Structure formats: C-alpha cells, structure tokens
C-alpha cells in the first residue's frame, strides 16, 4: 500500500491505495469520478483518457502511484458553472456523440490535440484521434466537432 497525493480537478486528494491500483480505478472507485470510463483492457479505446500534468494519457495504463504529486484533470472539470467547454459545445452542436460512453475520453483527447495543434486539418484530426474508439458515430461528426471546437477555441466565432 502507498499513500498517494494527487491533485484532481483542482482538489488535493490523499488516499492509501494498493500499488497495483490503476489511475482510472482511483478516479472512479476511490474518488467516485465515474465520468472517466473503461472501455478496454489493452490501451486501445481511449475511453479512460484524462489529462495528467498537461498531457492526455490513458488512465487505464498508468498506476495511481505513478501520478504521485501530479495534477490530473478529468471530464468533470471541463464545464464550469453551467457553461460548456468549447469542445463540449462543439460536440453537441455537431451531434458528435450518441451513446456517450466514448465521449469523455474523446473530449479529453481532443483537448490534448488542440493544445498541440490549434488549427488541425482533417488528416491531423484523424491521426490525433487514433487512440480513441467510437462505435456509434462512424466518427464523421466527431471529426466535424473537433474542427468546430478548434474554431470556437480560436474565437473565430
């Protein structure tokens, strides 16, 4: 067992965890932040994507103890006070979600993508979403949503 101190969504959490606890289980089971989902066990689907120290990572492939002292942002921190994050705004405007299960991971991956590349082309979006699977949308509207999110974030509209 190890005591971890992790800042999640601006709040410091101190918990004793088994060393084998995955970050995603720490978020979901210990902290009750169930917005981060688990869609596979081989690091392909990206449903568990969160931001750790400024980078998008798959929280199912990181130990909670590896996040010792880190700043973690999850989907629960994206909307503020009844106002959607521009990426969320874009996903709903473009109907970029259906069942919603992949959506938190998609949004967190998009945030990472746009951080690195504020004005991505379609090909760059496709490459940037390689780590995220969706079964409902065929990705058509997700690609549109990422483009729209980039516009909104750049303040074009």
């Amino acid at each position, binding site marked *: 067992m190890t005591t971890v101190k992790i800042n999640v969504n601006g709040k410091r959490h101190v918990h004793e965890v088994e060393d084998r606890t995955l970050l995603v289980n720490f978020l979901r089971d210990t902290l009750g932040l169930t917005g981060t989902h688990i869609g596979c066990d081989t690091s392909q689907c990206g449903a568990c994507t969160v931001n750790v120290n400024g980078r998008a990572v798959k929280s199912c492939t990181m130990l909670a103890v590896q996040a010792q002292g880190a700043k973690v942002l999850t989907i629960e921190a994206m909307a503020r006070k009844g106002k*959607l994050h521009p990426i*969320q705004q874009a996903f709903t405007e473009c109907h970029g979600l259906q069942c919603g299960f992949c959506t938190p991971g998609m*949004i967190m991956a998009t945030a990472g993508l746009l951080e690195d590349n504020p004005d991505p082309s379609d090909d760059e979006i496709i490459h940037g979403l390689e780590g995220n699977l969706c079964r409902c949308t065929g990705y*058509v509207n997700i690609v549109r949503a990422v483009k729209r999110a980039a516009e909104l974030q750049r303040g074009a509209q």
Partner: protein
Amino acid sequence: MEHHLLEVDGMRVSRREDLRLMTGAGKYASDWNLPDQLHAFFLRADRAHAKIVSVNVERALKHPGVVRIYTGADAVGAGYTRPLTMLTFKGKDGMQVRQPERPVLAHGRVRCVGEPVAMVVAESALIAQDASELIEVEYEELPVVIDPEAALAPGAPQLHDNVPGNLPFEFEAGDAAATEAAFAKAAHVTRLKLAVTRVAPSPMEPRACLAAYDPRDERYTVHVHVQGVNMMRKQLAAYMNMPEDKIRVMARDVGGAFGQRSLGYPEYCMQMLAAKEIGRPVKWVSTRSEGFATDSHGRANYVKGELALDAAGNFLGLRVDWIADMGAYLTPTGPVSHLRNPSTCLTGVYRIPALYGRWRTVLTNTNPIAAYRGAGRPDVAYVIERLVTQAAVDTGVDAAELRRRNFIPPEAFPYKTPTGSTYENADLPGLLDKALKLGDWQGFAGRRSASGKAGKLRGIGISTVIENTGAGLFPKDQIEMHVAADGTVTAYTVCHSQGQGHETSFAMIIAETLGIAFDRVRVRQGDEDHPLIGNHAGGSRSTVGAGSACHVTAKKLIEEGKALAALELGVEPSQMAYANGAFRTAESKRSITLADLAKAKKFVVTAEGSFSSTFPNGCHIAEVEIDPATGVTQIASYITVDDCGRVINHAIVEGQMHGGVAQGAGQVFGEEVVYDRATGQLLTGSFADYYMPRAGLVGEISMEEHPTPSKVSPLGVKGMGESGCTASLPALTTAALDALRPLGVQHLDMPLTPSKVWSAIVAAKAGR
C-alpha cells in the same frame, strides 16, 4: 453541418441527453454501486470443448476476502439451465426446435472458450480474480468443430446429446417447386457462395451488472445495460423459472448495444442467486477481453445464393441455401432473427416470381450468436445485392439498369412478396434516379481513369435495399404521460435508448403534438416505478413503436384534458378547443392551461398502440480506390438516398446512418472474429487483434431523403437505425470488387483486408 439546436438549461445542444453525457454525469451499468456490495469474477473455460472432470475450489475458498464460490452444480441445482427461446414456430417438415440446455455456469462440459465455469464472490474484484487462479479444473479434451459446414457433416463432433447432427432447427420459406421450375426455364443463372462473417458488435461500454435481493418483498433488483427493461426481465425470469414481477431491472445510460445488449446473459442469473443467498449485492464488471469471448457475436451466415434470369434480364427466381452458425448454444434472439428477417425480405426490392430458401441453424464450439445491428437484414441484402450485381456483370447489363428493370414498381405497393410479407410502399425508380444523380453514376468512367493515372484502381458499387423494421416481441407499446403543476409534461417509456436519443426525439414528438415548447417535455426510460408494456429498442423500432405511442398518448391527453377543462369551465367537452398547451371554449374567450388542470387534480394519461412493420428502403452508392501496391482500400465517396418516411430529427437520423455505414465498412474492410480451426481458441480476443473502425475510415457521406408516406405509424415514420449497415455491406463490397474486376478478380469474401486484396491482385495477375 448545420442543424436545429435545442435550448436546455440556457445551453444550446443537439440533444437533451448530451448535457449529462458530455460532462461525465452519465450513469452507465458499471457506475452503479450499493452499500456493502461484493464483487464477482468468472473463471472461464480456456478450451473450446471438454468434459469437466472436476472443479476443486478448496484452495480458492481459503483465500482471504473470498465469500463464496459457485460452480456448475450450483447452477443446475438452482434449475438455471434453459434460456428463453423465441423459436416457438415450426420449422421444415414441422420441426420443433431442439433447444440445448445451457446451465448458467457450465456443468459437466464446456462447449466454447470463455464459457463461465465458476463464479468467485469476494470483497473486491481483484481478490475474486486472485482467488479464481486457485481453482483447479480438470478437463478431458473433446474434439472441436468450428466451421459450421463441417459441424453439419456426418461424423462431426457432437455438442449436445439432444441436438443430433448439431442441427437445432431447420426452416424453409417460399415455394421450392415453383422456384425449381423458374430455374429450369432460365436463360442465365448467377450463383455465389458468400460468407457474411462473424463479427463482434463491440459497443464501447463493456458489460456490467449489479444484482441485489430484498428479502422483505422477495424481489431482485438488477442494474444492467438494457435495450428495454421488459426484454431483460422476461429473459432473466425465464432462465430462473420465476415470475417476472420478482425482478426489477433498473438502467439509466447505456453505452451502445446494437442488439448485443438485449440478452439476459447467464452471468446475471448467477449474480442474482448469490445476492439472494449471501444477502449482499453482487457486482460484476466485464473486461473487454472477456467481452470478445462471451458477449454475443453477430452475423456468421454462410449462404449459397442463386438468381435465375430470362434472356431479357428479368428475374425469374431466387434461391438460398443458408447456414446460420449459432455458436455453442441458442440465444433468444439469434436463431429467430437470422431466419425470420431474411425470409421476410428474401425478394429484396425486386419483383421475383419464385423464391425459396432453406435455413439450417448449426451449433459449433464458438461463442453464441445473437442479433447485431440489422440481425439478418444486412445479411440477406448482402446476398441479394451481390447476386444482382454479379448477374449484371455476367449478362453485360449496367448494374443500376438491371436493378431498375426488376424493381417492384411504385403502383404494385402494397406488395405481397412470395414469402408472405407485405411491403407497405416505396418509390424505387425515384430513389434510384436521385441516387444516380447524387453519385454521378454516369461520370464514373472519368473518375476511374483519373484514379488509374494516379496508379489506383477505382470501383463503384451500388445497393438498393429494403428491410422490415418496427414490429416487436411485445404486443403493444404503452406510454404513460404526467402533467405537472408547472405545466411540464413527463412521458414514461420502457423503450431504452442506447445512444439513439429518445429523450430528445420522443420529446420533440410530444412537444409537437401538444403544441408546447420542447423544454416543457421530459422523457424517462425504464423507470422502475412506471412499469409498462412495450418493446425494447431493437429492430429499428423505437420511433415507430414508442415514438408513435408518444404521439397517440399526447392526443389522448388532449382529449381527456378537454373533458376536464370543460368541467372546470362549465361547458360541453365538444365546445372545447385545444392549442399550444391551453384549452379554450369555442364561443367565449375563457381558457385553461394544461398546468391549471394539473394544479387542480393529478393529470395522468396512459395510452398505447400496436404498430406493425415498416419498410424503409434506400439506395447507396460507394466508390473506392485501391492501392495495388499494398491492397489498401479507401472509400473515395459514399452517397445515400433513403426512404425512412417522415424524419423527426434530422441530426439523429444522419448520425444513425453514419454509424451504420461505418459498422458496415468495418465488417467489409477488416472486422472478423477468428477462432483457431483446430483448437477453438479465440484469435481476436482484444482491440489489439480485432480490427475496429477508426476516424477516417468513412469520410463525408452525402445524404438525401426520398420519403414515401407510411400509414403504419400516425407519425409517418419508418424505422431506420439499421439501414446504414444493411445498405453498406453490399455497396462497399461490390465497389471493391468492381475495382478489382478488370484484373480478373471475380469474387472475394469480406473482410477485404489489405493482405487479402493484395493477394487477389497478385493471383489474378499471375493467372493471366
């Protein structure tokens, strides 16, 4: 893409459910927890066919934190051995289904990899898994049969004593003699042997279930993903031999389903038993790897198809010899959907005088098959459309022209098909014209030549399809509607969205019928306090069934409201008029609102409707480019023209089409569940091995609508959730084959992987 946005809580959204789903506030099956809950882990068969000699749990029981371990003996002891069957009709020569037993934990024998052999219940999921490794199972290996044709052959390993020849059910439709006669006089017969491959539906949410038992009212509560609570409860009750009212199924958000999540899986029954016996709730969350082995697979149909034509290219007859791989056991939905849907639509969109089909379901040492988006409809459309395009090639007629020549003409609707179903209506020539224009069918030669100059092989494919959607297992669809004192209308339904957005589209229907604002309407799905009769969301029936019932119920609400309002205002009900949330007397200017009525008295209305099948139809045209150096196929363009009747929410309909086309493209270009033929081991056990469509597989899709009115539903809608899959399998496959045909490639089965396409190109070149 611009579409109408709704305003909810001051935010502009496409769908009401988006707000919670985008902010992490959705509640999926694994998000449920109960105080004092235990965790289950299932030890699964690591071989495909074996006698279970012994299961020793002693060491595992001693592992700290383990509460109890169940084995097949417990499952048999409880009597949980016979899943629900929906095969209640007779088959060929009066055959009754030979239903194999399936104890919810394997007993005596395992018949496929992944079958649960023991359930460990412990204080944590990790402890349960740790302990499962201490269970000793002694097996005695039995011969394995994976290939369904081989399973039907004499001398094949037999899976179940009561299913001789591994043939649980044989079925036929149409007229064998008339079809034989039609073939006898044919000028040309096109024959193809086709595989509609086994695929993993793979909704993004892995399975999960939390079962609890309350001894005070002797009822179980089961939190699990559903397509409708009734369908789930019916299966669990049947499996566990108990009345349905002993089980409450509770679900909120469902992370995709596609047919796979309509099943009452064996694991859930074991959890319920344990919850009752131990007296604590039992939770289980599947991994994706477990899911690949044990969540029902889809398709797996192997079909010999024949199409007879006269010298003028008129279709004379169509015949199929259909083998439906069912896996090791029969699921409630698998056999029914793979017999009924193909036989209903066996004539496709064509006037074919003589039809005959024979279906053999077969058991193999593989994971059971159940409905997957389309559930037999994409399969039969694939067979028919492949045959028609091949016939066009064989006879030198344009593929679109041959279709047009044989369409059921608009004036022939309603059209009774030779297999006994009645298509309501369609305008097939109009549909085709629109599609040929949208897809610039005539301009293809130029595009092919341009691709050729860039070193690419270009092909064009077309499908014109129809399918039966909308009818359901339950006799009717009920909606309960409440008016609150603030005028908010809440509708309850047992039809459960898995991403289709019922809370939005049903609310739009109600808001429109009542003439009130969208944000005054709420839709609640599967609410345990509002039990209703109604179908699950499957077979593209949500809007046709529950959606229409929303309209019917809103109408009834108006009628009952008129009576109440008349009483309040002291006039005859016939003098009342209703518009936009208010009742007015015809003569005076006095009025009373829905909210006023609800303030005076509880205002609740329940109504229902029975809605039969609708027949959406469509024409899809795909163009692909193949890189001959790598065999990689890219979708160059994809256009759809669909008739799904009246569209309630265009964004949702487009989204359904996108998803369906992508699932079809996934199956055509890469998806396939593969078992080792010799050992029955699953070779595609994770997303690292099983190809899943990713962003970029399907680019922009150009869509147009070509609606014809439907009277099945008062809304004029036709179910369309599966159309994308149905039309895309043949459109994309024929496009790829069209690209390869100039090289001499005649036939390939899906999946058209780069390796397979490249090998075909090499073989064709070598053969010349």
